[in-house]
């Protein structure tokens, strides 16, 4: 908690907040009568376990990111393969939250504005942020979290104390707790914890060992996030009907009323807060992707290479937004969420054995 340890906490909390946008509640709700609760508990154990392993590995290299660590001694083709592979993965991670949020804005705020223009508006900001030094990205993350989390907390509390939150619906789901956990919900729920993975670049800022009190905090906060983000929509929209909504949380925010505030509909407050959260989440992911790619080419200061890389990122995302109109963004994100789980496990185990032996 003290000192620079809080940077680690921010990275983890960021993912807990974005889970609402990238369909995690929606998929978990599908399994509400089918092993949801045990899956979530299992995901908590696995998520925190992986997080702990990963911090042990990186604690051996204080102040160094993956590109710097690999520079110490790994043959070049393998290094390039690892860096490009991870970079691509982080890029997709950012892209999926970006496209998910653009879809929400497009549907709810202004369906007449094309998605491409919405994306371009985001890209202008992102292009500026992801090139910043790692330290400054972290400062931005800290500021945005401090400004937004209290309001997001307010929306959550408002929902939790709503008269229309039916606790019987929630308990009805709890009575189905004794069903065997399934792989898919475990994989999806573990997304909430995977913010720690950004440590592969942000370890540059972590000079001290992460104290175990952080894991205790993360354990409780994550359980709370996971359970509220699934059970509040169930309580508001019923255990039998909630799965009909594509965006359970947008519907829940729209079901809250602030009669004495300037804007009566909470959904607009909610969307405004999540513009910031999505923006910084994508910035963090793409910053990691960007820095990893930068580790591939030698001349770190090469401006042409950086520009080419940015053009590649932006071109790919524009292409994606054009193509995704014809597919289901929510399905893609489900496959990605599940794939991410396995890649994460393999990567952490790889790090754990490999980074110890080599250096």
């Amino acid at each position, binding site marked *: 908690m003290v000192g620079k340890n809080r940077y680690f906490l921010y990275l983890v909390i960021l993912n807990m907040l974005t889970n609402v946008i990238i369909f995690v509640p929606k998929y978990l709700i599908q399994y509400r009568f089918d092993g949801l609760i045990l899956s979530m508990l299992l995901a908590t154990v696995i998520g925190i376990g992986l997080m702990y392993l990963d911090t042990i590995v990186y604690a051996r290299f204080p102040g160094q990111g993956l590109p710097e660590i690999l520079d110490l001694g790994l043959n070049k083709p393998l290094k390039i393969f690892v860096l490009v592979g991870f970079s691509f993965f982080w890029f997709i991670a950012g892209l999926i939250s970006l496209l998910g949020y653009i879809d929400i804005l497009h549907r*709810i705020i202004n369906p007449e504005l094309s998605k491409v223009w919405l994306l371009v508006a985001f890209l202008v900001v992102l292009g500026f942020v992801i090139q910043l030094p790692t330290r400054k990205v972290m400062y931005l993350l800290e500021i945005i979290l401090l400004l937004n989390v209290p309001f997001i907390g307010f929306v959550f509390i408002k929902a939790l104390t709503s008269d229309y939150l039916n606790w019987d619906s929630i308990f009805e789901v709890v009575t189905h707790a004794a069903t065997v956990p399934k792989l898919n919900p475990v994989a999806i729920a573990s997304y909430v914890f995977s913010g720690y993975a950004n440590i592969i670049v942000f370890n540059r800022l972590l000079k001290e060992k992460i104290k175990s009190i952080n894991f205790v905090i993360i354990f409780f906060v994550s359980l709370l996030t996971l359970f509220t983000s699934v059970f509040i929509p169930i309580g508001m929209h019923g255990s039998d009907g909630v799965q009909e909504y594509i965006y359970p949380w947008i519907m829940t925010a729209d*079901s809250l009323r602030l009669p004495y505030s300037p804007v009566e509909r909470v959904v607009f407050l909610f969307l405004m807060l999540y513009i910031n959260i999505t923006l910084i989440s994508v910035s963090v992911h793409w910053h990691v992707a960007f820095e990893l790619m930068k580790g591939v080419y030698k001349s770190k200061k090469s401006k042409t290479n950086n520009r080419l890389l940015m053009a590649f990122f932006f071109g790919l995302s524009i292409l994606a937004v054009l193509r995704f109109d014809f597919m289901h963004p929510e399905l893609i994100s489900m496959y990605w969420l599940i794939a991410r789980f396995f890649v994460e496990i393999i990567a952490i185990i790889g790090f754990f054995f490999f980074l110890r032996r080599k250096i």
Partner: protein
Amino acid sequence: MSHYRKLLGVLFILLLLPTTLSGCGFKDIDKRIFVVSVGVDPAKNSDKKFLVTLKLAIPNVQEVSNEFLIIAEEGDTIAEAVRIMKAKVDKELDFSHAKLIVYNEKILKPEIEKNLYYWFIRRRDFQEMSWVAIGKPSAQEVLKLKPKSERLPSNSLFLILGKDGSESAYVIAEFLFDFKKRFSEKGLDPLLPIIEVKKNIFEIDKVGLLDKKGLKLQLSPKETMILNFFVNEEPKTALKIENGEQSFVIDIQGVKTNYKLMTDSLKQPYIKVDIKLQGRIEEALFDVSNKNLRQYEKMANTFTKKQVRDVLVKLQKSKVDPLGFGLRYRSRHFEKDDWETWERLYPEIKFKVNADVQIKDTGLVE
């Protein structure tokens, strides 16, 4: 060279592509007209199924500005009728301020078509917290009424249903999202307030109860108030204790209700209902005295007990469950077939009502 030109051409097309997608873009507020309420009636003059009515607010800077425009169109679906209505007004119809949806009673009997409420949820511009109500004699009549005390179109209904203005225990408001939830949730049935047009005022003191299909039962104002003790624990009301010449009225200040299902390992399952009322005597047909408060409380208890029981039995007889007894049963039982068990139990279950009326004093007069 030609390669570059091709590349440039592709880039140029890519840049132009978004402009073709953007359609009409953002419309200014002076080119929009705001729908404040929507009514659905059965069609009268054609073989179409429904008559959809929209109430449009006319912006106007006078002191009393509840001017409005009513447009109506018949159609087999709401969407169809609304599209035709778009051609009737000069501005873009904007539904983002439509806060009231009124159904004609006949629409809900014997069965409401699902699309009639899904349409509002499916569309992005309707608020999830629009109010839903039954309109009598018709939805259109409710929309057409212009009460004297109203300042903005439809605002008087928003104030009543939102309890921002008048607070009445006879009004049970229902939001769109909750209405939809109650249709899908097994063991919790929908209920809608009934808005009646009486000459120049609205009368909202009854509630219509639905099962998963349509309107089953309408409660009288008094029964509505008792139901509201359970739904909202709404205290701001007066309860008349009828006892011949010994009748008196309690001004209720606090309500607490609770129920517990006693169904396990019992020959005769029952629902234990506790109702706790607090208040003071406001009016009496006889001389009341602070000394005899206990005696009045006893009278009030027996009376309330019977009233509450009658309402609950009435719900049970009509096979509706707006209070969610069934959901409570499901949420406390772990078996897979708990809902089937409850369906068997509910028609025969007994109610044991405990009333606890606390009368603080007889008001300012001894």
